[in-house]
């Protein structure tokens, strides 16, 4: 399946993301999930970014938190709400909110 997983938190209390198997996986960082795209802890980037997936981060939520798109980890595409609608309809068959 082509699955978009919306990660909305910095700390996940569920390990579901690690277990999901999909032929095509997109991870869309929204709300507090956008911190994964920018913040490093003890110098290391978020372990989430090691997953084999296409990564996106919502610009409105980055900017709300004072995070700059210029500091985004490489390989993450910055998208807006309109782009997210296109991702949902055109790129992924199913969506999951974590």
């Amino acid at each position, binding site marked *: 399946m082509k699955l978009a997983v919306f990660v909305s938190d910095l700390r996940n209390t*569920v390990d*579901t993301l690690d*277990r999901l*198997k999909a032929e095509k996986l997109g991870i869309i960082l929204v709300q507090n999930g956008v911190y994964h795209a920018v913040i490093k802890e003890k110098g290391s980037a978020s372990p989430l970014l090691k997953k084999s997936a296409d990564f996106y981060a919502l610009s409105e939520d980055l900017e709300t938190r004072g995070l700059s798109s210029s500091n985004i980890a490489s390989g993450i595409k910055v998208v807006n709400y309109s782009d997210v609608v296109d991702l949902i309809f055109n790129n992924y068959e*199913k969506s999951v909110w974590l």
Partner: protein
Amino acid sequence: MATTKLGFIVQRPPYKTENPKLALTHAISSQSVEVYLKDGDLVTADVAFVGDGVLNCIKNQKATEHYDISSTESHIKNSLLLDLNVLVCKEDLEKFGLSENDIVMDAEEFGADMKVKVVPFAEINKMMEEVNHLLFF
């Protein structure tokens, strides 16, 4: 005649938040959705408990006695009575040191034929692939 399949995935334990119970009540409402649809059209609901969500399945819940609310256990039994497919992740039960003896497995006392199926996560992932839409709780 068309069928839309929905997968309800419950990841969190019960009671502190209402969402696991709402997953069940929404899944159960698949039984009455036909009032909105054309004759022969259907919506089916598969329910899976994963991660901490398997804790919803522990039996002998006393929610009614202590908080005067329906138990999640009773909703699982209703789901079985209505022939919903209810899956519980085997690895997560084992992680908590739980077995089939500790959880709701059937609703035989109400005449339900369906039983809870304890399955590997891989089977739950397969269900997720087979349904049309996913609803994570």
